[in-house]
């Protein structure tokens, strides 16, 4: 179902062709990083800390180095020293510990051997002596008086008065508007609530993997699975102390990322091992390593106070947000502060947010980082306010929703946005008024995400037969190649299936930022459009030559050069006809587009969730789900729906099941999909994705990013539905059967 504002009619944009990379993926031929093998390849294994916090006293690699098949062993000493003032410091010392380990699973050494078994045996023979330190595993432990301080250099940024001693608080962000006291004084209803959430993992099905081949000339080629191969290049170069030109990164297919593959873990280790051994080195993480050592999303503690007038107008909001970034400074606090009150007009607000370090794996981005948790707080509190004031929950949101011209938390007025349209789409959906069964409840929640622009490059090459190749630098996680082909088809006027969209390596296409922030179809799409428009100008010029006329007399209409001059009739020339004569009219037809994309359009989503709660077990089943989202313009609607549906599934898992569990020594207890339970097909119903299209004025086709916003509303939508079904307010994640049952039976309607 699509709800559309009036927009230009497109021939290809908005259609649903089979994706170009689909055939390889359904036949098992697509090459993911772990599928590559090179001649003479060694296997690399990482040695990881068994302790959550410890000083490295010594590392003895001599036994390992003497073992059969072992060709190289590396430790932190094999990389240039790095200083905390270096902006890559956290990344470098996270990839390979120096002097101290900060979480269980932190890499301390790596070994390359002829076989994986040999490498594993050698890794086990590396002797690391640790001085175990007390660990701070949670926000409370990290902030407690006398807590072990992880980083001696961590002086809280934004502290007032300025910090004079190191602490586990990396930074504090504050936003404010209006007069908070006056705002609350104006309120007829004030509620204050506290929430806690646990770290959760992105849970991509493909573990991190790479192959690095370093030659005697000191140049290396890396094949890897990442959300951004240019970032793999620069990050690896930074860690190795190399120039970018010594590293070529060839993107393999990527088996999911969701933000978790915007940073790197293995690649510089594989390069260093390969350089030392003089052989290609392949490294593939186990699932256990993925859980222990790669980016979970932060855990949080949130305290929010909201004030509303009797008529439902929100007049004051106060938020105190703490995000744990794992072992190094995270960005959750800032992003949480920027999202917590962003969806609603609240004249008086104050936000203070902290990023705190703890002895768990360094957190990484996860789809709309930080926003699902602030939405958990705000959207469940809005439900409480609606109930208390006797106002319909959707009407309450409509009355307070931000629209074009309203100020954002950061002060600027919103451009055209589609929040109201998303609310209306859900209100008008049959789901909204469908009857509920016994033990069932319905929850509504909204969500917001910024979306970003950044740098992108594209090259369009027309082939001799009139087909086209579109090369971009954006790894395709969820179907973006199909979107690139559709936009190019619309511009050039040729069938999208006559266009081959490919992801070029770091030496085949211009610099392109990471596929993150829902930017690929937005920003890289703009680069594709720019390249195509340059190409069309070139095609008009070539056609003018062929027709013996001036370029100004040639229009480009539906894939053809059409003569508009007054010198009689001239037959139109197709792309194929112009391509066939390219050698005689000026040579190969190639055009590039590269830009820094301005004007990323914010995305809003509104979800409606029905759950059924088993009163005897506390098990919550999602039985119906409808998700509206403003896509701006859906270039390939199937993959827009897919992004929304995938975000919902991840959000439902976050709401109900997923959490990192540590034992008393700070060792993760559930590093596998058996005990870290992500939703399976039988846990979910169909997810009705309602695409709302309020075009982004800054994009040639009106695209907003769609990748992230869909994960923001599910947690509060599920929580509100559980409340509707049981009368219980759950404010701690996950809302597991145990917690739900406790709330139903013991706690008088809440989970504590």
């Amino acid at each position: 179902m699509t709800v559309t504002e009036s927009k230009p009619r497109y021939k290809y944009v908005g259609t649903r062709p089979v994706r170009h990379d689909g055939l390889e993926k359904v036949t098992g031929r697509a090459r993911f990083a772990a599928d590559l093998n090179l001649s003479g390849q060694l296997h690399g294994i990482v040695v990881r800390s068994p302790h959550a916090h410890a000083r490295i006293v010594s590392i003895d690699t001599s036994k390992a180095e003497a073992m059969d098949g072992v060709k190289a062993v590396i430790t932190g000493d094999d990389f240039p020293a790095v200083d905390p003032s270096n902006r890559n410091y956290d990344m470098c010392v996270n990839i390979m510990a120096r002097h101290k380990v900060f979480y269980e699973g932190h890499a301390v050494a790596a070994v390359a051997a002829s076989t994986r078994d040999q490498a594993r045996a050698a890794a086990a023979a590396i002797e690391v002596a640790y001085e175990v330190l007390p660990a701070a595993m949670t926000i409370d432990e990290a902030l407690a008086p006398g807590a072990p301080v992880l980083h001696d250099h961590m002086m809280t940024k934004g502290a007032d008065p300025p910090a004079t001693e190191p602490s586990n608080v990396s930074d504090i962000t504050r936003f404010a508007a209006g007069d908070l006291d006056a705002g609350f004084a104006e309120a007829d209803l004030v509620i204050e609530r506290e929430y806690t959430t646990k770290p959760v993992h992105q849970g991509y099905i493909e573990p991190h993997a790479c192959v690095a081949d370093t030659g005697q000339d000191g140049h290396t080629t890396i094949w890897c699975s990442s959300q951004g191969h240019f970032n793999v290049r620069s990050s690896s170069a930074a860690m190795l102390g190399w120039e970018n030109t010594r590293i070529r990164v060839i993107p393999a297919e990527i088996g999911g990322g969701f933000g978790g593959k915007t940073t790197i873990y293995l690649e510089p280790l594989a390069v260093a091992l390969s350089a030392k051994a003089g052989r290609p080195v392949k490294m593939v993480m186990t699932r256990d390593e993925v859980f222990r050592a790669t980016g979970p999303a932060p855990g949080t503690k949130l305290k929010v106070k909201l004030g509303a007038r009797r008529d439902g107008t929100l007049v004051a909001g106060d938020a105190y947000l703490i995000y744990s970034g794992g072992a190094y400074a995270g960005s959750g606090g800032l992003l949480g502060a920027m999202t917590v009150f962003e969806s609603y007009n609240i004249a008086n607000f104050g936000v203070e947010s902290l990023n705190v370090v703890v002895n768990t794996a360094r957190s990484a981005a996860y789809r709309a980082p930080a926003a699902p948790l602030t939405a958990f707080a705000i959207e469940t509190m809005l439900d409480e306010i609606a109930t208390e004031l006797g106002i319909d929950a959707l009407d309450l949101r409509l009355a307070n929703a931000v629209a074009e011209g309203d100020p954002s938390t950061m002060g600027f007025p919103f451009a055209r946005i589609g929040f109201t349209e998303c609310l209306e789409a859900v209100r008008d959906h049959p789901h909204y008024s469908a009857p509920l069964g016994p033990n069932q409840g319905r929850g509504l929640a909204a969500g917001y995400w910024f979306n970003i622009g950044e740098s992108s490059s594209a090259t369009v090459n027309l082939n001799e037969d009139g087909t086209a190749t579109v090369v971009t630098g954006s790894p395709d996680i969820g179907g973006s190649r199909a979107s690139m082909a559709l936009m190019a088809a619309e511009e050039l006027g040729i069938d999208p299936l006559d266009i081959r969209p490919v992801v070029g390596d770091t030496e085949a296409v211009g610099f392109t930022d990471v596929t993150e922030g829902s930017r690929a179809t937005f920003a890289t799409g703009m680069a594709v459009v720019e390249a195509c428009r340059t190409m069309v100008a070139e095609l008009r010029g070539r056609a003018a030559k062929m027709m013996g006329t001036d370029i100004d007399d040639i229009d480009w209409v539906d894939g053809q050069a059409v003569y508009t001059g007054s010198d009689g009739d001239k037959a139109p020339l197709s792309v194929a006809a112009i391509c066939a004569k390219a050698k005689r009219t000026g040579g190969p037809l190639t055009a590039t587009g590269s830009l820094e994309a301005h004007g990323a359009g914010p995305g809003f989503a509104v979800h409606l969730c029905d759950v059924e709660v088993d009163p005897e077990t506390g098990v919550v089943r999602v039985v119906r789900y409808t998700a509206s989202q403003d896509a701006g313009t859906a270039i390939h609607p199937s993959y827009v729906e897919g992004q929304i549906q995938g975000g919902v599934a991840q959000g439902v898992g976050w709401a109900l099941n997923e959490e990192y569990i540590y034992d008393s020594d700070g060792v993760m207890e559930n590093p596998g999909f058996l005990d870290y339970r992500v939703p399976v097909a039988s846990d979910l119903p169909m997810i009705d994705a309602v695409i709302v299209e309020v075009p982004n004025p800054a994009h040639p086709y009106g695209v907003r990013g769609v990748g992230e916003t869909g994960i923001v509303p599910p947690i509060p939508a599920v929580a509100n539905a559980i409340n509707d079904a049981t009368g219980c307010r759950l404010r701690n994640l996950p809302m597991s059967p145990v917690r739900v049952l406790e709330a139903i039976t013991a706690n008088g309607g809440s989970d504590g």
Partner: protein
Amino acid sequence: MAVRVHLSSNLRGPAGGLAEIEAQGATVGALIEDLDRRHPGLGDALRSGVSVVIDGLLIAHPEYEPLADGALVYFVPQTAGG
């Protein structure tokens, strides 16, 4: 160029808490230099990790962005994504 500057609330510390400032600059970079002269330390706060919004358009790396006379420039924290 006379320009109106709006600072998001987290950036107002070096500006003595001011939300709006009148300043001069033909580009955002020149504007930041002028702001730093008026409010020492504000330049450092605005040079990295900060985007601008001009005429509704979010610009992440605005140093050389030209400014029209009377423009309204919003300085806001840079966002990221997953």
